[in-house]
């Protein structure tokens, strides 16, 4: 009886959160999907047009460039950040001196917003200011670095800023994982005479599956909502070379008064995210089950 009552209390306490999830998240998502099937422009209307907005969307060059940018950025961002973060974690795991300081230094970029990160990197990479100018001023006049203003390279400047921002976080997650590895395993590898790099790569790495999945999902969310970095660093340019889907949605939602197209783009993003994240979540839950 008492147990039943406390469960009821818990359910009542959870009710607002559930209502919010249902109404705000599911309701708004449903509404977004509905609007994407209408001819809405500045104001939402209910004039059903089927998949016409999607047809326009996937005929739109900027959207296609945005989507391929996101795919390229996402894959490279996650891969490089994971590799770099893991490497940093291993280095710090060697009980180096001033570990606390180094940890803070590496984690520090993550405390900055993408806007600040973007502005700082934009200044650094600007061919007439920043690094290129400093190099020229101290005599290296041959030094040229204009990736920020080159259409075929600009996405890599976003990538550099993104990795700089996220690698520290990956390091922190990985370091926590490394510190959780049983000391007995290390003793065993030493007795067996396995070199440290092999121990890390083939023994410890597979044990950190959970940490990898966590870091990957965290980074994947920042890939999908990639917006401010592009706005601050390049504003999508030169041309449309560094446009990203979230920016396409925002521009059409507000400045371009094209809600129908914006919601179609948002819905396409949602479908892609679900398609990518669902298997990851499944993998992580299996990894956790296997670990327990």
């Amino acid at each position: 009886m008492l147990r039943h009552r406390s469960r009821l209390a818990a359910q009542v306490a959870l009710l607002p959160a559930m209502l919010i999830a249902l109404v705000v998240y599911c309701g708004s998502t449903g509404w977004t999907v509905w609007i994407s099937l209408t001819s809405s422009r500045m104001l939402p209307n209910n004039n059903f047009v089927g998949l016409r907005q999607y047809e326009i969307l996937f005929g739109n060059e900027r959207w296609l460039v945005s989507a391929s940018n996101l795919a390229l950025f996402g894959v490279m961002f996650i891969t490089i950040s994971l590799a770099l973060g893991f490497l940093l974690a291993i280095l710090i795991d060697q009980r180096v001196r001033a570990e606390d300081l180094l940890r803070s230094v590496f984690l520090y970029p993550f405390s900055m917003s993408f806007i600040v990160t973007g502005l700082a990197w934009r200044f650094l990479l600007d061919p007439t200011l920043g690094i290129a100018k400093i190099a020229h001023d101290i005599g290296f006049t041959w030094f040229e670095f204009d990736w920020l203003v080159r259409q075929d390279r600009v996405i890599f400047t976003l990538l550099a800023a993104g990795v700089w921002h996220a690698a520290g976080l990956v390091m922190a997650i990985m370091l926590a994982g490394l510190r959780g590895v049983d000391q007995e395993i290390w003793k065993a590898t030493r007795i067996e005479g396995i070199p440290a790099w092999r121990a890390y790569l083939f023994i410890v790495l597979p044990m950190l599956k959970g940490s990898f999945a966590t870091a990957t999902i965290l980074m994947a969310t920042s890939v999908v909502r990639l917006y401010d970095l592009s706005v601050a660093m390049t504003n999508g340019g030169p041309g449309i070379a560094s446009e990203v889907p979230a920016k396409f949605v925002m521009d059409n939602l507000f400045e371009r008064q094209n809600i129908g197209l914006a919601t179609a783009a948002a819905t396409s993003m949602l479908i892609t995210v679900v398609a990518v994240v669902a298997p990851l979540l499944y993998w992580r839950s299996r990894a956790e089950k296997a670990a327990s």
Partner: protein
Amino acid sequence: MFSKRYLLSCAAAAVLGFAQPAAAQTAEVIHWWTSGGESAAVKVFADQFTKAGGKWVDTAIAGGPNARTAAINRTVGGNPPTAMQFNTGKQFDELVEGGLLADVDAVAAQQNWKAIIPAAIYDAVVRQGHAYAVPINIHGQNWFFYSTEALAKAGASEPKNWDELFVALDKLKAAGLIPLAFGDQKNWERNMFNTVLAGVGGAEMFTAVWGKRDANVVKGAGFKKVAETYKRLKGYVDPGSPGRNWNDATTMVIQGKAGFQIMGDWAKGEFTAAGKTPGKDYGCTVLSNSSSAGYVMGGDVFAFPKSKSADVAKAQAMLASVMLAPDTQIAFAQKKGSIPSRQDLDVSVLDACAQKAVGWLKDKSAQIPANELLSPPAVTGAVEDVISAFWNDNGMAADAFQAKVVAAFASAM
């Protein structure tokens, strides 16, 4: 003692309040004028409105799109401001269709707008016979500003048409100066394209492209020439232009580092702030290959959300008539760098560039309605993306550009 005095003053205030029920018409105005010259200009409105017995509540939101979004959301959400700014043109079309705006027919009739405002600007605020906004100014968008010093150094003179422009640009280049100062952002890429479209293509092509979105015109040889001329300009901008702000580009002209800048007349504010005089330190001209001037004109308007309150309606009417009052118009134009939207005023106090523009306003064939007057934001944006891709992609041929513009016309319902 203290509390007694406090109560008394409260009572006094209450009594006074009741005694004068409509003491001050309060008007909350949303606008995006936040830079130095702009806030000075909007202060003219605020002061005049206060003088007329109103109370101005200033809601400045930096960035046009942000300000418009906030104003639209509040209007749709039922908590509208008294007045909100738009660019002259189609940005508020759907608010009119949705019945969310109050008309200003009474003020329009009283001030006889139809007679005193240029037709294109007047038409841009009228929907189905009703005026829905106050056109407060006219901005020319296709000006060439040039540094007299830089041109003299390069041995160039003010061009009279596009061929002469390229001669001058070549001379500047040869003299080691930056021929064309450019703040390379999407909207300015579009504005530069529109400048070429107006000057090389002409008024008829301009309205056929943006207004009728005529695929045949876009596919034609005339438009191709416009595209090629536009691309030719790229050879005259410096490598630091991508992402630069327009006012930083203006500074390059002010300092004599660069020869020309293509920009709207709001750039005059920067010159004025730097203590430069038009006609002496810098020149301004509009280039056209035809006999007509080809002055591309847009501007700003204020629209008034519908309200059930009679007080609000009264404040809106007062605001509308104050904004178009002759002395307000002149004082505002001086600060803003624009020209008054009404033509029945003595404009001798305005600068040399504004005088040129006022001259063109007398001749309808010299005028071209701006992009925003002709196409809805969704279409403008889609075409802007194509223009931007064309400007930045050195491999894109004019033919491919023409085909993409046609495709972009279909990208909005």
